[in-house]
């Protein structure tokens, strides 16, 4: 089977250590590398199974010093022409190289797609089919969960709004094309251009957000947990450095879940502050408590805040039970007050790193940072690299949508007939749908019938 599209992905784990590998596979793999590789020789003219030293460039900017490995199909993992770019590790550099590869003609691989291609190209024993299916299944499940759940609510809403507008205008044009005697398109092009300018601006802003990592919550999912009024929100504020969570001394203030991303010595933590865990009859608070428990299940790291000025109670013990199997750090908070619990006492119940802090006075915060850093670099806490891929995939989709809308504008300005607009409008609609996990289906036809009165 010949697969026409060329795909790329990061083939190594996304940590700050070691080397990173970006893999490209498909008929245009050599075209892509020739566009971005600067070295002594042109890669496409080199024999298979050789390694070349050089630089990856994005236009004029040099991104990294690399080794490029060539494997011509069918003698490669996927059976297609394959390029592997070995670069200095580092999340930023690897990501940047993948983005450059995407910009130059490849598309991000679907979850498990390399393996799928290898299999379909006969590079794997048939007996491994089940294993291949498992890989696709598992990776998809993860990617799906991430691509949508990692998307910030506000971003999702914004994209939803853009899609709605695109669909409305497409449906208007289409209903006029289907029923020209009832619906007129006179002067519609100009109106559309105004709308397009607005949408293009919003998309541009979203792309910038994506660049700054503000679109999805990249990083280690860290959940702060503790019984009510243990000082969780104060801790978040101390870490973030601003009054992000509302802090009061009334128990049960944080009834929902707050989220914040912070950078600690180059590690990004995606911190979730939760409602205090306690048995409660208050319905709103109960929802918050359940949410907190869910968040904890998904977390890469749990920060358990214990109020050292009070005795351990049943709420603390419930938390201890829940986090036994998780990566966690325990903070004995309120060291500024008279303490009723000691590290030693707590160690009997829970074997996790422990620090005494005062979130209010911001004491012990530095120690916490050091512990987190150590845990990360010793590989105790990691996170799945699919998140990074997700972000790149989403950026790619935003870029596609932007280009498509720009093409609509060009078509209007070039005096093309209206039926050409909708081709690109629907392309943009589809690209954005990939971000929010929605497909087209019967959207357009339904919109036509629900919004516009067709004749006969």
């Amino acid at each position: 089977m010949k697969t026409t599209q060329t795909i790329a992905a990061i083939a190594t784990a996304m940590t700050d250590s070691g080397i990173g590998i970006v893999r490209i596979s498909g008929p245009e793999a050599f075209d892509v590398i020739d566009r971005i590789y600067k070295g002594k020789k042109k890669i496409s003219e080199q024999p298979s199974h050789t390694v070349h030293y050089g630089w990856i460039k994005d236009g004029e900017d040099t991104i990294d010093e690399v080794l490029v490995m060539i494997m011509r199909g069918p003698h490669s993992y996927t059976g297609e022409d394959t390029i592997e770019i070995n670069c200095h590790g580092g999340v930023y550099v690897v990501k940047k190289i993948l983005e450059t590869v995407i910009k130059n003609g490849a598309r991000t691989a679907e979850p498990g797609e390399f393996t799928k291609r290898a299999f379909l190209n006969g590079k794997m024993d048939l007996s491994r089919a089940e294993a291949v299916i498992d890989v696709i299944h598992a990776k998809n499940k993860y990617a799906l969960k991430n691509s949508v759940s990692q998307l910030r609510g506000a971003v999702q809403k914004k994209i939803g709004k853009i899609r709605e507008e695109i669909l409305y205008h497409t449906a208007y044009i289409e209903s006029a094309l289907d029923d020209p005697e009832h619906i007129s398109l006179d002067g519609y092009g100009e109106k559309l251009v105004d709308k397009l300018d607005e949408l293009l601006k919003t998309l541009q802003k979203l792309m910038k957000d994506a660049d700054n990592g503000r679109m999805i919550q990249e990083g280690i999912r860290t959940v702060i947990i503790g019984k009510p009024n243990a000082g969780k929100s104060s801790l978040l504020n101390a870490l973030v450095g601003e009054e992000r969570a509302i802090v009061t001394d009334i128990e049960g203030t944080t009834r929902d879940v707050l989220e914040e991303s912070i950078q600690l010595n180059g590690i990004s933590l995606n911190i979730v502050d939760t409602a205090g865990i306690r048995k409660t009859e208050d319905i709103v608070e109960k929802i918050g408590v359940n949410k907190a428990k869910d968040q904890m299940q998904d977390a890469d790291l749990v920060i358990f805040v214990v109020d050292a000025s009070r005795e351990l109670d049943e709420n603390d013990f419930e938390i201890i039970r829940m986090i036994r199997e998780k990566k966690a750090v325990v903070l004995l908070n309120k060291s500024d007050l008279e303490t009723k619990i000691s590290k030693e006492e707590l160690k009997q119940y829970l074997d996790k790193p422990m620090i005494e802090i005062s979130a209010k006075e911001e004491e012990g915060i530095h120690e916490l940072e050091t512990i987190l850093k150590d845990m990360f670099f010793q590989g105790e806490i990691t996170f799945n690299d699919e998140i990074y891929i997700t972000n790149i995939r989403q950026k790619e989709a935003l870029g596609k949508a932007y280009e498509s809308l720009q093409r609509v504008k060009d078509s209007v300005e070039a005096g093309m007939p209206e039926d050409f607009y909708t081709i690109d409008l629907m392309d943009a609609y589809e690209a954005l749908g990939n971000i929010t996990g929605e497909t087209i289906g019967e959207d357009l036809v339904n919109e036509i019938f629900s919004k516009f009165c067709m004749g006969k």
Partner: protein
Amino acid sequence: MKYSANSVWENKDVYDVAVIGAGHAGCEAALACARLGMRTIVFTVSMESVAMMPCNPNIGGTSKGHLVREVDALGGEMGKIIDQTFIQSKMLNRSKGPAVHSLRAQADKARYSTAMRMVLENQENLDIKQTEVTEILTEEGKVTGVRIVSGAVYPCRAVILCTGTYLKARCIYGDVSLETGPNGLQAATHLTDCLKNLGIRMYRFKTGTPARIDRNSIDFSKMEEQKGDEYVTPFSFTTDPESIQREQVSCWLTYTNERTHEIIRNNLDRSPLFSGMIEGTGPRYCPSIEDKIVKFADKDRHQVFIEPEGESTTEMYIGGMSSSLPEDVQYEMYRSVPGLEHAKIMRNAYAIEYDCIDARQLYPTLEFREIEGLYSAGQFNGSSGYEEAAAQGLIAGINAALKMKGGEQIVLDRSQAYIGVLIDDLVTKESHEPYRMMTSRAEYRLLLRQDNADQRLTKIGYEIGLIPQERYERLLEKEKQIASEIERVEHVNVGTSEAVQNLLKQYGSTPLSSGSTIAELIRRPELSYEILAPIDPQRPNVSHETSEQININIKYDGYIKRQMRQVEQFKKMEKKRIPEDIDYDKVKSLRIEAVQKLKEQRPVSIGQASRISGVSPADISVLLVYLESIR
């Protein structure tokens, strides 16, 4: 051979194919079968209803015009008959892109019907019989014949169901409910039960038609006249355009107003649609006037088109005002429209309910999955419209014949024809209303134009045996000329001579600063192949049809190429067949919803599977790997 213990009489004429129904689907199906050498019989409840047009008096329109062209390109009849019997013709959307240009003709209904009937009557291998078919006879899941109302049995090897809106039909307006087919014709009451006994899942759909008003009672001075095109384009690729330039009749445009709407609103409680008397699902694309007023309450007026039903009648069709309101409300409502103040209603508007099938029980060949030799087409399959019916009828007829001959049946895909989109949608997607063709349903519509239907399909029609050698050769000649002329203009350079610059100036086009090819100039929106004739002296003599193809192919080259690339991807997935006996329960890791949908639908290809709602791209990947592993 014995077909039933109590058979009264067995017809000794041997038929290969029996077609049930002689509407637009039945006519095409029967003609295709007979022309492909099958001994064919077509049953109709009334000889007077052959190719009848019980609703609007026109053929074609947006996307429907494409269907007619495609039917013609494959060797069907509809295009030829409407070319003979139109009384007005118009190319819609002429100011838009070529993909949405759509031909629509007003038909003389009576003449259309008669002309088609004559073709059927004079067709070799084809018999027509007026009677009601009551039963499909099968043995071991295979069609063996049909039984008619007298009890007589007609043995045959294949049956094509084209029952339109006749099955258990009920016509309704106000509190009047009549057990009749369209136009008061006899309904077919027995067949549904037989189909249900065969295990076929049925739906109940609804549609409607407006009143017919005596033209002598209409004041046209209060309406806008709607004329046909000055130069008429024929539907059929075989019709010489010069032979059909004739006097045309006019249609008229008027509008509803606030009073009309008030009358309707005040009487909504008497509408069977809102009182719950009608259970069937109606189409969203042609809502009744009461539907429009409820759903689009902010519109202060709706267009009303007054269209003649023919030249030998004074009946006028009131387009845009179909209704099932009671008779007295109909009078009041129509008479509130300017020009219709003294309207005499010759036929009341009515809604009609009928039995049809869930077409997902069919293969894309239009044969039932569970009953060999049983095909179906037209409104019976849940579509609406004469053109949609004809298209399916033609395909069902072709495939029944090909099957009898032991050949491979044809399936047009979504990148080849609107017919492909139509049938794929019907057999793949769940639908709860009559399905109407729309250009927005065709994802590759830039390639599926009405002007190139012959280039897309006539070769297929020729290979099947419905297109004569001579017509096919003419097409090849045309294609050769288009290709060589495009090649030529891509290479002919024009300089910046005064003649060139003057011509450009004349059409408001920017003068050239250096040389350019003719093709580059054609790409400018304000210019065309024809306009550039004066600066292109080596140009051969080409027909209007050919120059149109040159313009389109050069002007929209970028978009066309883009769609062609998409089609390549699409075809790859269509070509991956899924074995009939696949056990989806054995495919590990398919999501439960996907397993359910796939089991229910049993798609024939990975491509079709991917269009089923509830089947995700990951499911498709899993399926691909699974198929490879069991190969």
